[in-house]
């Protein structure tokens, strides 16, 4: 489920550890996600899932863990799945 997001993190997150070793709930900032990398990650997720993060989601919390990112993506693609 989180495979796509994990791949994007490994490509854009510039983490100090291997993404594969991280649990879904692990703190990405503690794993080395910088402010700039989190922006690149945000853009790559928008492109990959064809979504646009609303301002209310543009905060550190939304990108704090793989699970948090997945929750944002799920919410923004929910309409699409229903239809």
């Amino acid at each position, binding site marked *: 489920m989180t495979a796509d997001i994990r791949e994007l993190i490994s490509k854009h997150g510039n983490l100090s550890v291997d993404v594969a070793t991280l649990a879904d709930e692990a703190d990405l900032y503690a794993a080395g996600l910088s402010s700039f990398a989190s922006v*690149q990650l945000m*853009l790559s997720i928008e492109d990959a899932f064809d979504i646009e993060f609303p301002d209310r989601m543009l905060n550190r919390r939304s990108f704090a863990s793989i699970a948090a990112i997945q929750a944002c993506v799920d919410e923004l693609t929910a309409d699409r799945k229903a239809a």
Partner: protein
Amino acid sequence: MDQQASLLDKLFATGLLVETGVQGLYGRSGVFEDVIARFDALVSRLGAFQKAEVLRFPPAMPRAWFERSGYLKSFPNLAGTVHAFCGNDQDHAALLECVAAGDDWTGGQKATDIVLTPAACYPLYPVIARRGALPEGGVTFDLQSYCFRREPSSEPTRQQLFRMREYVRSGTPEQVQAFREEWMDLGQKLIAMVGLPFTVDVANDPFFGRAGRMMKMTQREQALKFELLVPVNSEENPTACLSFNYHQDHFGKTWGIETADGAVAHTACVGFGLERVALALFRHHGLDVTEWPAPVREALWGTE
């Protein structure tokens, strides 16, 4: 909008600012410059206790430093690069023909190794870095420069070429955060001394594009930037006259600045928008400086 136009019109009419036909590019009168100089000196008196090292750069910096600074990631739309003619006699003749015909003559201009300074502290960081590790107590610098930002506007408070005075601190996170705290307090005292109404609020830089949306939010979320705002153009949209910025390890990492014990140095700065303060003074105390309230005159000119 009318009020904005009329403040600028009044400044032109009294000759305090001199119109050039380009928005945000103005000449200044002797009186205007005197107000800037007096306020600049007041900042120096208030900041003297820091024994900051004074450095002055021309309003331009090496393109290589500019590229490494990361400015293009965040504000590509505001940068101004210096281009110059690099051709031969033939190219010169072609250029003059274009000028005479009113055609575009700038196509052959080539980028030089110089970029206009976007903020007074940008040329400082590489200079700090090449001196080696910081001393135990960190360092404090005193800067002032004309800065360029490509944002034409009819608001006199948004000029394309304007002066920024800065104190910059580099050291441990604790040292630079204490510096910013202290200046948030001193900045309010300073503006109260010159009789201006103000508020202080958390703020963000005008980061560019989609990526910028998130950078704005995270900058606010982490309270990295505060501004001291004075109503100049309107009450609803007060003007940032001072800003208090904590860069965390951004410049330390970018330039390899190290603290005495080898950690990545943090930096913070307080910036004073000199034209903006002068405009706020003219807006609140009137266009005739001899009529300004006595305490304000005393703060700026002393008891002469």
